[in-house]
């Protein structure tokens, strides 16, 4: 545990407050879907660690969930954080766009 000035209590509570709920909609193992999976895995490892819940939905098996989430094309990443929902379409190659949706520091910089 790193020593912090603001005390351990707030630090322990912080993850809960910023917890992201992520839903990645893919179409089987189609090239862009595969790419989106890998990109998201990389982003989570670098920026979110365990601070998120990820669900992957394959629209080829379950498209009703996609319809309900208003996802019209795949791959698509639905981000629920701090009471707002953002959808990013595409294979998640543009990391900054994903980070902006996640409201993480690099995006705030811009």
């Amino acid at each position, binding site marked *: 545990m790193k020593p912090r000035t603001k005390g351990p209590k707030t630090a322990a509570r912080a993850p809960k407050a910023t917890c992201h709920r992520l839903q990645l909609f893919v179409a089987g193992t189609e090239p862009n879907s595969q790419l989106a999976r890998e990109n998201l895995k990389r982003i989570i490892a670098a920026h979110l660690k365990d601070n998120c819940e990820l669900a992957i939905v394959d*629209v080829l098996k379950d*498209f009703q969930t996609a319809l309900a989430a208003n996802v*019209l*094309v*795949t*791959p698509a990443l639905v981000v629920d954080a701090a009471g707002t929902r953002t*959808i990013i*379409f*595409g294979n998640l190659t543009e990391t900054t766009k994903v980070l902006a949706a996640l409201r993480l520091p690099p995006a705030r910089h811009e």
Partner: protein
Amino acid sequence: MSDRERIRKLQEQLAQAEGVIEALRSHQVDAIVGQDDVALVRLREAEDALRVSEDLNRRTLQALSAHIVVLDQQGRIIVVNEAWTKFARRNAAGDSATVAVGANYLEACRPAVAAHDPAAVAALAGIEAVLGGRQEQVTLEYPCHSPQEERWFLMTVVAFGAGGAVITHLNITARKQAEEKLHASLHEKEVLLKEIHHRVKNNLQVISSLISLQADNLADECQRDLFGDLRDRVRSMALVHEKLYETANLARIEFAEYVRHLLHYLWRAHGSAAAAVNLKLDLQPVWLSAETAVPCGLILNELATNALKHAFRGRADGEMMVALQRRKDGQVSLQVRDNGIGLPVGSDWRQSRSLGLQLVQMLSVQLHGTVAVRGDGGTEFEFVFEPPKPPS
């Protein structure tokens, strides 16, 4: 819902639509989710492949050094390549637009056809034959010299698509010039070879004249005869070279013609002894190489001379028959038959001490041939051999 909220909602929808369009445009979409199904989007790979192959085709056409033009059925130019354009720009007198895309190529050919340029007449006829579907392909070599240099082209017209044609003009000047050089060099070699055969024949003739002169000074008739035989042998060899430079072939001679010529000479050379002998010929045309013709000629010389000298001894007249034929098995047969006194009873010609008959034996072995002798109211020698195949 307040107006403000409604506007915010619409803005959200717009932003989302924008995201979808952007993902679609950048080919990052795999599937479209509909009300009751999912459609996979797999256009991208096919589109890319098409784009790549179109680009490849275009670049290949441009990279080819041949001048290429594609015509539609009416002869209008649809496509040209870089090499075509460059050549047209350099060569079209003033107006290269007559052979650019959109122009009619047949019309562009007409002025040269009207001027009776034979290459243009043939080219136009070829193009029209392909466009009219009468021919699949036409090729034509033609000169197209510029004031500065000699140029040759190979034109190929190939039927293309629905009634059109692809025309290729390939510069073949280098090949043409190499061909001409080869022809010139070949001609030079032929002239030289002819000259060599001529000189060999002349030298052999000088030798036979020298032998004749020497023989004239001899008192002994027997010795004169020996010199005469020698002269005839040299003469029969000279005759092969004479025939060689007389024929266009330079490598082979027509042996029947040689036989006629040699016997005519022998009859003249043997004067009164030959005058009483009636010569009959049955000759088929047979082509022999110089290497085969020389020993074969010597064999004929020995057999004919031998018959003239010995076969009709004590007779007032006689008949000699010489036959030449190529048999069905490919072998050549040379027969010398006389109705003279025949060989001495019980003698074997192979044991003969006569130089002439020894020569016949040696030369027939050299040609891998056989000699058969029959005596029935005279003597018949038949020499059979297989002439070596000419190198192909």
